[in-house]
């Protein structure tokens, strides 16, 4: 398969940027980016919703608790993005086909979004501080627990945020808007200083 080229490949070069490195205890902000092996949107309608949820659970070995809970394992992450809608990241490149085979007969819809998003991971004590500059949602753990996701916006651009752990967020950004988004994030993160690292899951 031909390699995917992300618009951020040439913009995110490893290194330290912004405020000089902290020699103290406070860890630097770490930023990395990746493209998805597979990214799929699965849609279910009210009548078929339960069946689709069960099918998804079987395929991914994850338990869907409902609401905004975004369970994840080594192979899959499921992010509910609306009523009857799931955004699913898979670590294998053929997931779209496999989902289509199982979900469509179960009366759901499957849309391939593998090329439509770039994922920026931001991690560190200052991650919330930096994100809160441009994103108007409550980032406290109470309001945005670990392993949940949020569909929100940044400068009128839609954005899906998955909270991986207390200090780590995966930002799913529209591919065509990735450079523009990075332009903002770079400036916002320079205030505290950040390091670009190779993507590690």
């Amino acid at each position, binding site marked *: *398969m031909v390699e995917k*080229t992300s618009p951020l490949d040439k913009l995110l070069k490893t290194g330290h940027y912004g405020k000089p490195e902290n020699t103290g205890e406070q860890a630097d902000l770490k930023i990395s980016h990746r493209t998805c092996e597979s990214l799929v949107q699965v*849609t279910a*309608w009210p009548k078929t919703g339960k069946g689709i949820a069960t099918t998804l659970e079987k395929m991914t070995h994850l338990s869907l608790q409902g609401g905004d809970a975004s369970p994840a394992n080594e192979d899959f992450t499921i992010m509910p993005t609306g009523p009857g809608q799931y955004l699913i990241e898979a670590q294998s490149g053929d997931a779209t086909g496999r989902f289509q085979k199982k979900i469509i007969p179960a009366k759901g819809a499957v849309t391939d979004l*593998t090329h439509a998003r770039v994922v920026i991971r931001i991690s560190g004590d200052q991650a919330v501080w930096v994100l809160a500059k441009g994103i108007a949602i409550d980032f406290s753990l109470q309001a945005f627990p670990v392993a949940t996701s949020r569909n929100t916006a940044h400068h009128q651009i839609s954005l899906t945020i998955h909270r991986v752990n207390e200090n780590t967020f995966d930002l799913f950004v529209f*591919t065509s808007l990735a450079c523009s988004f990075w332009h903002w994030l770079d400036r916002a993160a320079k*205030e505290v200083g950040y390091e670009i690292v190779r993507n590690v899951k």
Partner: protein
Amino acid sequence: MSGYRISSPDTGVRIDPTKLLNFSFNGRTYSGFEGDTLASALLANGVGVLGRSFKYHRPRGLFSAGLEEPNALVTLRQGRRSEPNIKATEIELYDGLIAKSQNCWPSPKFDLMAINQLAGNALSAGFYYKTFMGPNVFFNKTTEVWWQFEKIIRRAAGLGKASLEADPDIYERMHAWCDVLVVGGGPAGLIAGERAAEAGAKVILCEQMAETGGSLVGSKDLIDGMEGDEWAKACIERLKDHENVRILTRTTVQSYYDDNLLHAIERVADHKIKPDAFEPRQRSWKIRAKSVIIATGAFERPLVFSGNDRPGIMLADAARRYAVEYGVLPGKLISIFTNNDTAYHAARTMADCGANIKTIIDVRQQVSGEIRAIAASIGAELLVGDAVSRTSGLQKISAIHVGHFNADSKLVAPSTHRIETDCLLVSGGWSPAIHLTSQFGGTPIWDEGLQAFLPGKALQNWYGAGAMAGKFGLANTLLSATDAAKSALKSIGIKPKKLKPPIVNSEEISVQPAAVYEIRRAIKKGKSFVDLQHDVTSEDVRLAHREGFISVEHLKRYTTLGMATDQGKTSNVTGLAIMAEARGEAIEDVGTTRFRPPFTPVTLGAIAGENYGHLKPYRLSPMNDWHIARGANMYANGLWMRPETYNQSGETVEQAYIREAGAVRKSVGLVDVSTLGKIDVQGPDAGEFLNRIYSNGFAKLPIGKARYGLMLREDGFLFDDGTTWRLDENHYLMTTTTAKAGPVMEHMEYHLDVVWPELKVSLVSVTDQWAGIALAGPNSRKVLEACVSGTDMSDKAFPFMGVRDGEITDIPIKIARLSFSGEMAFEVFCGAMHGQALWDALMDAGKAFDITPYGLEALSTLRIEKGHVAGPELNGRTNANDLGLGGMVSTKKPFIGSVLVHREALNETGRKQLVGLRSLDGQKILGGSHIVASADQAQPGESLGHTTSACFSPELNCYISLGLLKDGRARIGEKLHVTSPVRGTHGAVEVVSPHMVDPDGRRMHG
């Protein structure tokens, strides 16, 4: 002013006398200490005249110790960072600070513009409506005379001058959420914040000074056995220890909006000579608070009398603060003029610091024994029932003239005493700082005892505490604050902790003033100022009343009282009182104007935040870098950046697109169409839904075929056009124009959610998923035959409007045989992140055919020649029939717009219809020109329509345009003109069919 620094113990609690700082004011060097404000340092250096007033250019000195300051406005810093109209009282002193006076030249002490004072009544309220008019005679109409004066007045108006250079600093925005927002870090705010924090609430506390403490700074009152100052310091340390508390100092809450959204500005680096690297100068906070505790205190106001603006006249409590907090006394021979008890507290405190308070004049008819005792204890002569009738002094006050005050007539008798003084402290009462509570509506309530406005009914979830809520005195303040905290917590479902109220040992001083605002003399002489910053006198207020501007809203605008940068913080109530008296009504019946955000001046940079330079997000195609490297002129098409033309060296834009379009029609070209809106439509009801959305039939579209569709609005007008491909039984890919991608998606989502929620259709935007390349020209198929595998590219196997899957160099692709240009053409789609690789592969395969990349100009040219409609024709006022697409409006099925499309008005004769226009005289046709019959440029006559999309046609070798012309189809063959009076063009054209090239469509079907 004769201010000077003192060093008695317990004075100057804010300053560090071991840290000397040097600063420059009006070019002279002075020194101060860390902790000083520019105001306190200037006062300590004996600088009296700080600037000149707005209109009359009268010398003015320091008036207050806080953000209510009307006089001491300076321009801070120089060059790009120069900032005008900053109050010296708000500037934290740092080493190397540079500031200068405003509104005076060459200096505040000697100002040439003071000549204005001779103009006297010519500059009274509303002068620009009255004074600078000319006689209405012959040619000299009234307004023309004003225009001449206006230029001069505008140059003289204003206070400081803004820098015209770009601001080099960074500004940021920040969003925050909390359970309790505490506005104010004085005693009320501190204890309320602590109570909230102890109960486990998430708290944000905003304090506009660098340190919290407020009125407790330097206070000797006892709270739970500790001195107030110490208690405040311990309290803030406890708050800082709480995990759920954020303390924002140097942060002013400016505005209170709907749904408990408050806006605050944090002055991150204004106390330094410049921000650190990557540090923002200021930060704009948008805070959503579940509950708000407003503990903003109160402002002291002055008394109004003749000559009350002389340098050396200051608010009494401000002087007390300078003594206690900054270790500065404002004069050596101090007198005090008051209508209430609080001035005595200030007097005693200052006397304890070593001040020489000579005289206290109390306008009330009687005072209490305790008050008399205070005066006696500090050795001040007490004159009860008297008033200051006027002041003397050239550039600063040298004496006051005191006479007997008649409480009934409110007049002061001719003076009996002349008292020498170098500093007069005034106290006219206290106005709670209710601004935030009034910003979104709650009408303030007049309190007769306090002679002040209290906050009105709470229209949102906020609670008042301390002086803001009319609770004066430390014990009252703390009690009201703990109550406010309790109520706030309860309102959001958090249980307050049961804590004992603090034990307070403080002297309770009454704040209730006599209802005296102005001291008038029987014979009007001199000027009595109400609004110091805008030079509004009490006579101006009465003038407004005489001229009929009696409502407070009119009073404000006509006199400009309360409209300066201090927004009338020390003058509003007094102005209302004077108007009430003129109207013969009670103040509460006169009311007050509505406060508007922001509370204090805000720099525009802080509001803009990071939004400067490129103001909107930008969207880039996967092939963006290639276009730029190839020398394309990139331009913004909505949010997208797209190539206009690929200029080769020396080419103009026109030459470039002519070359590119010609290359397409001759052989083959490729254009990046990744920006097209693409929507994935799936579901058992997808076909039915599309049939309801499009005006032409979609129910029978075969799998593997695409169809051009028209979407109407419900009112029958055209909304958008596009092409939908049927990929599978229940799976379609819809394309829309770039511009309408968003609106079409919203249009369809609305109908699925609101109108037909029973339909099972999934809509997902896939604009970003697919890169798109259109390959057009007689050799386009040959190029694809050379590189596509997995599908038969022959005409029979792949007919016009067919959709196929395939591969190019291992990249999975979808191909649709569509034509926008009228040539043989294909649209090739692949995953966006393979886009560049696909583009490279097509360029490679096309080498043999001289493949030419073409941009939007050429794309437009080709479709204009072909007569294909696009945005300029789908302008929201045209219907299908107008554009010759009436055949696409089905009469066999209902769809969105199917009823109103048959309205009379949309089908009558005389409507503008799509035509083509060919230039007959070689002149370029401009889009947006009128189509007229007349050959006379000076008398074009009636407009018959307008041109929509114009270009030079390489195929026809002349300038052409599409246009909308009245009864256009019936006029084909007529000779008319296109005219643009705004651009000065007029040319001859022939009306032709819009399908100017290959009208039979043989090329794309071949």
